[in-house]
């Protein structure tokens, strides 16, 4: 018998863009920074990335199985979370800590709230904050591996991050701008190489995965704030997790506002909070907390920034 005609609701044409393709583009955009991490921090950086990605994907797989939901590992979002989580860890950390981080990110933050698109905070960042408070000895102070430690013969293989040094007043030990731009400084394994992160960001903008609104507003706010306070603007831009956060974490679709006006408010808020924490709080670095705090504000921001429907009279507020 001849097959019947398919009847469906219009439109009958799709752009061909899929969640999987978007995630693949993000993974490609993260590759320069991943490569830089391997060069700067050696094989241990690669090990952490592999462990983190594998445990995130495994967690997602098991979660979906246990919850009897359709499996979503093929959308590659767990791979992105795994990479971002690894980028937020020091290269010399115990891989088991990365596994724990993956469980927090995927099981607690993502799947318990319903999976992709449903989490209200960034999974990788939340996991980083949980790890920071659970394992402070491994993720703060002077425990950060120094660049090229794996071929160094120096006694001390770890040091503080540039912002840590700044907070302690040891400004003479801060690397110069070029070293900072190329990533030769202490810090999380994926956050140090500004060049690689910017390349990734440009790729995402060119591929129209993100608009430059959030990164530009976020970084711009930090620069302006820093300038007004008479701080070293370039140091503020190149240190900490600012570029990683502004380009890859604050632009997360699920946890940032959906339209332009909201995105601007969100990004400026992230910038202000980052600088407030850096300048006035006891932590040397504030990107993670500021993004998470602004993630929580998103529903509120969106309520105030809904676009006005074309030709529709504004709502009359009843007295």
């Amino acid at each position, binding site marked *: 018998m*001849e*097959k019947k*005609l*398919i*009847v*469906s*609701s*219009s*439109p*009958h*044409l*799709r*752009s061909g*863009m*899929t*969640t999987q*393709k*978007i995630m693949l583009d993000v993974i490609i955009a993260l590759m320069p920074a991943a490569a830089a991490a391997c060069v700067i921090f050696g094989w241990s950086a690669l090990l952490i990335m592999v462990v983190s990605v594998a445990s995130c994907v495994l967690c997602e797989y098991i979660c979906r199985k246990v919850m009897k939901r359709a499996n*979503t590992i093929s*959308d590659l*979002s767990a791979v992105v979370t795994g990479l971002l989580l690894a980028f937020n860890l020091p290269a010399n950390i115990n891989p088991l800590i990365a596994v724990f981080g993956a469980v927090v990110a995927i099981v607690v933050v993502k799947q318990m709230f*319903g*999976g*992709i*698109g*449903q989490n209200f905070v960034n999974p990788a960042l939340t996991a980083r904050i949980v790890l920071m408070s659970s394992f402070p000895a491994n993720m703060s102070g002077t425990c950060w591996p120094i660049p090229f430690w794996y071929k160094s013969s120096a006694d001390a293989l770890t040091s503080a991050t540039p912002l840590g040094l700044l907070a302690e007043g040891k400004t003479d030990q801060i690397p110069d701008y070029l070293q900072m731009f190329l990533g030769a400084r202490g810090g999380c394994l994926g956050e140090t190489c500004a060049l690689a992160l910017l390349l990734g960001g440009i790729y995402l903008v060119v591929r129209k995965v993100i608009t430059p609104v959030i990164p530009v507003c976020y970084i711009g706010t930090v620069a302006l704030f820093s300038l007004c306070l008479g701080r070293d603007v370039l140091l503020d831009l190149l240190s900490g997790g600012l570029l990683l956060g502004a380009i890859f974490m604050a632009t997360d*679709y*699920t946890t940032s506002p*959906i*339209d*332009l006006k909201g995105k601007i408010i969100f990004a400026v808020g992230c910038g202000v909070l980052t600088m407030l924490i850096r300048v006035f709080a006891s932590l040397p670095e504030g990107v993670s907390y500021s993004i998470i705090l602004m993630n929580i504000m998103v529903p509120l921001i969106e309520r105030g920034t*809904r*676009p*006005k*429907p*074309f*030709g*529709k*009279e504004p*709502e009359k507020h009843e007295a």
Partner: protein
Amino acid sequence: MDLMFPKKPYRTHGGAHVPHHKNTAQMESAVMPCPSQVILPMQQHVGAPCKPLVAKGDTVLVGQKIADSQAYVSAPIHASVSGTVSAITQVMLPGGQFVEAIVIDSDGQMTVSPDVKPPVVETAEDLIQAVRESGLVGLGGAGFPAHVKLNVPEGKTLDTLIVNVAECEPYITADNREALENSWAVLSGVYTLRDLLHLKRVIIAVEDNKPDVIEALRKIADNPKMDPEDTVRVLPLKSQYPQGAEKVLVQACTNRVIPLGKLPADVGCLVMNVTSVAFLANYLKTGMPLVSKRVTIDGSAVEYPKNVIVPIGTKISEVISFCGGYKKPPRKILMGGPMMGIALTTDELPILKQNNGILAFAEEEAGLPEPTECIRCGRCVSGCPMHLVPTLLEKYTEQKDTEQLQKLGILCCMECGTCVFNCPAGRPLVQAIRLGKALIRKAGTK
């Protein structure tokens, strides 16, 4: 006054770069030979259905009025072939509703009725009366009776005629061919409308993917002999879907925003499809009412895609046979374009007045992706020409929250499908919005 001609189109929000697939744009239209039978449903327009004026067994001639209605918002129907009324029966329209239809068995002669003679038109009232008698409906696809549109209510004044040659739907090239093959009729219709309705300017809006149309129309419109006061100009638009949607088009041409629930007339504009305008000119010259239509036949299942001028009421299957038949088994047949067209259940339906395309797709293009969860990427929001948040409309439709739906402007949605086209998660957003609108209607009638 803002009655200048814009140098370039005004900014409109959103839109999408849909693939054009204008495969038939360069091909001369073919004229379909007389079909063996035509089926003329009593509803081929927005408004009240017509009542048959003929009975089974009657002989009819081409152009003879065979059905009409007393209602104001309606348009009469004319025989498109000569022959015998073989049945008055019920047929299903593409949307699924059943209406009465007159079936005419053709005698193959195409004898023209003696009633067909040019109308005498000297005033706007004459024009409106003539347009009503011609059976003209909006040929862009909406099917709104044209005489209603031309009859501007007291208190409103029109200053601008916008001729819609955007044709932003992929595949469809019927308006494109009309503008090329009947450029003189288009301009003649434009001058008639301008003079009788006392319009101050005419903007012929063409998407810039049709440079040949722009050139052909400009050659006539920019001729100072024809248009000494320079009241008619061609405006190239960005080739961006949905540029031809009425509200978007009016904004692109005049920067005026049509309020929700209002018509172009409320902002002084008259928007007419190019084929409607050309038909009007020909009707005033010959008196032949709307009995045939140029239809783009295309899609991966069709052997020889082309534009065909067919008698209205010809079965789709017969028109496709004329185009060489199916080269692959069809799995989806659309009446209209792929963005807003209706998927048909069978190719035994007749061509209607407002049809501009029939697309038949083989297996590969017929299926749709399985939806996955919304990732809030915002592509539906940045693409929406009506500034809506489609993903929220879907959410509130699921929750049956009609109050929120109305607050979010669901009634502004014209179902252009840009959000669904862009959605990486394959969400059925337009489907949800249609359901949401139905919920509001239901809540309103309680």
